[in-house]
């Protein structure tokens, strides 16, 4: 089987033919069983490719990797060539917080020492003064917290009906209060992205919003 269309069949299957060509090929397919068969088989090959399963390596390769990265040894953070900064620590802490449902905010104040390494307390001059990297790192953890907050706000909207109007008003006022505080903290942080205190303060304030939403949702849910 080898007609003028054979070599274009994959493009057809992938939807890459222009309208005119596609029409012409489809007209051909109507009359050519061999090409029709080929198209069906090509589609099966694609499907098979997509369903290929990943296989594990036959030996465990981790020990080789571990040796090469120096895992399990004492690592002086300052010797690693990356910008070890507060926003990254907070990103890790926030991720932990959102995982555990809010019980781990202690980590923000006393950064947990990851197992297997010893962190030498970084001094301000050790921080690389890379404002845009810091801003990006902040965007990451605030992004995650914002997502968690948005989820809870949706929950609250659904549950609001169970609370009386006065309580709803008070809750909204306090959420607005916290939002203003968050706005101010963000503005300050944007002007000074790597600043440890401002990062922590923004994180704290966002946490307060998360906790307020959680608490009100719990109260609303408990109302019959």
């Amino acid at each position: 089987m080898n007609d003028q269309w054979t070599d274009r069949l994959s493009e057809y299957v992938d939807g890459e033919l222009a309208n005119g060509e596609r029409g012409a090929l489809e007209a051909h397919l109507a009359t050519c069983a061999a090409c029709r068969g080929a198209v069906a088989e090509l589609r099966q090959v694609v499907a098979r490719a997509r369903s290929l399963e990943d296989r594990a390596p036959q030996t465990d390769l981790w020990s080789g990797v571990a040796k090469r990265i120096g895992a399990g040894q004492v690592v002086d953070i300052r010797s690693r060539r990356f910008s070890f900064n507060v926003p990254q620590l907070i990103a890790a802490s926030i991720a932990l917080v959102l995982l555990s449902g809010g019980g781990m905010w202690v980590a923000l104040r006393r950064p947990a020492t990851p197992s297997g390494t010893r962190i030498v307390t970084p001094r301000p001059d050790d921080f690389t003064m890379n404002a845009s990297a810091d801003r990006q790192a902040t965007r990451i953890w605030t992004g995650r917290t914002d997502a968690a907050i948005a989820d809870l706000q949706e929950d609250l909207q659904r549950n609001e009906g169970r609370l009386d109007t006065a309580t709803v008003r008070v809750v909204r006022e306090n959420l607005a209060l916290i939002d203003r505080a968050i706005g101010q903290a963000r503005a300050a942080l944007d002007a000074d992205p790597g600043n440890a205190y401002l990062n922590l303060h923004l994180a704290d304030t966002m946490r307060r919003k998360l906790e307020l939403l959680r608490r009100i949702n719990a109260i609303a849910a408990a109302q019959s």
Partner: protein
Amino acid sequence: MPRQVLEVTLTADSVAADAALAASGDASAFERLYRAHVNRVHSLVRRMLDADEADDLTQDVFVRAWDKLSTFRGESAFGTWLHRLAVNVVLARRKTLGVERGRFHSGENPLEGVSGRRETPEISMDFEEALANLPDGARQVFVLHDVEGYRHEEIAQMLGVVPGTSKSQLHHARMALRRYLDR
């Protein structure tokens, strides 16, 4: 207390958390990431190159990922980032192997060609084996496009060919693999 939290089962969020921790030097977090992604990376490397090199290259990928973790900004999923890094490692290796750019087969059935690796092509092969026996160019295009989902424009750039070549190589690979669908 933090250690208890670290023993959660793997979810998208915990992958992100582990990436952040690993970026700041936590090797246990990196090991969890390794465990979660090694099969995928190894399979990619094996299909793109070959089984002999897959082990070494897989380790190379993870070592490089460890070094480069500080540049992972979390804007895409960690798996996607790692995957792209693996592809880059494979492509770099491909260059050092001295694969000629010109050696793309245009014959009807590449598997019948001289560059087949098996000495006894009569033995029935399963799909993955057949894939491994495709010539390098066709196989790599097929893996990148149909298995890994890259587009022709991207593949062309990665492999240093024009998109047209990528398309025709893909077609040849698919046509050759048709026969090994049911194995």
